[in-house]
């Protein structure tokens, strides 16, 4: 039987993976529409959006890979942590707002920390949306099974709140992990090696 903290850690990792997968799905859908718009119009604003979304998706995939590796206890993690420890010293500190404005004034470049935090916040919002749908139905026609579903969702929400408050490493380390693994993934792609990917609409 696993100890309580270990079970909790496993559950947090699972939720973090779900959050990143959901966000990847949403960004992939935006990307599919922007790519189609750019292919049809060739307009620069669509190209800028496509570029930015690709960058965000790349960093999210890198984080997803890191989470997967952590869960599996991958043998290369200690090495990664040592390299990240060194690289993190050179990563510029996160600005207070956590984002930089794109030159177009329309688009915003998110720091890796903000990007991941937003993925977790989006999962929290989605679960809250589900909770509201269930609670409204329960208010109109109460049932025992729905009541159980509501309790389960509430527990999940508490876990996601915990994930947001304590499930992210220090911003510099997180940035270093995302950038390093993103580059490794790009190299693996060049070498024709398969990468574990979450499903996306029209990659």
């Amino acid at each position: 039987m696993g100890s309580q903290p270990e079970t909790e850690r496993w559950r947090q990792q699972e939720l973090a993976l779900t959050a990143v997968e959901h966000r990847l799905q949403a960004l992939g859908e935006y990307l599919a529409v922007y790519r189609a718009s750019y292919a049809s119009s060739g307009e620069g604003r669509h190209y800028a959006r496509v570029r930015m979304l690709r960058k965000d998706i790349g960093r999210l995939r890198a984080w997803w890979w890191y989470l997967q590796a952590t869960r599996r206890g991958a043998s290369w993690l200690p090495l990664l942590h040592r390299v990240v420890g060194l690289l993190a010293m050179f990563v510029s500190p996160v600005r207070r707002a956590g984002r930089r404005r794109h030159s177009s004034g329309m688009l915003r470049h998110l720091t890796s920390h903000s990007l991941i935090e937003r993925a977790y916040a989006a999962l929290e919002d989605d679960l809250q949306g589900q909770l509201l749908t269930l609670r409204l139905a329960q208010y109109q026609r109460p049932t025992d099974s729905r009541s159980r579903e509501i309790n389960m969702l509430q527990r999940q929400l508490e876990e996601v709140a915990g994930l947001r408050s304590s499930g992210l490493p220090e911003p510099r380390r997180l940035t270093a992990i995302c950038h390093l693994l993103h580059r490794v993934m790009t190299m693996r792609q060049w070498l024709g090696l398969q990468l574990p990917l979450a499903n996306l609409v029209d990659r």
Partner: protein
Amino acid sequence: MLAANRLSPALESLPRVFALSDLKQLLPGEEDQALDVALRWLEAGVIKQVAPPRPVFFKVILGEELDEADRCRGLLRAFPSLVMVAGSVLWRQGLSAQRDTLLECCVSERELNCNLPGVALRWRPPAWWAAVRQAGGIAGDHHGVAMLTPEMALADAAAFQDVWMPDRGAVDWNQLSTAKLSEATQHLLPLREESGVRTD
């Protein structure tokens, strides 16, 4: 009760279409309250979820229908893959003399439940977005919602046969390119075969 009164002005300060995250921003430091406030508004019927269970809402105001910009905004916030199709495209691009009664859009999500009045959602397989891209099948946007080109809209309607199209006589065929229509049809052909529509 006191808390409810303190929070009540928040609904007026929100736009007609808003997300849960907008409400949270209105209640800094009281984000947990946002859920209770939203539930109270839903129970009172002053707001509805755009597409349950997505955390996007619109205000219900008696005698004030949602305008097209708000409907598009609501759909865009709930469905990232949204693309306008069919007769809705032809009318908005001035190629049809008949107006659509429902704004028809395609999404990649399987859950098509939508509370927005005057809107119909259709499902398309993920490969559809790639086909649209390869055919250069997007012609700008309407309140931010990407619209198919008229040729692509016709090809899509023929391929999937689940959308409304105006009568043949109501379409201005002079504005349509036969070459583009043929190209769009070619790109959608594999999907048409997959969807089991008879091609003879």
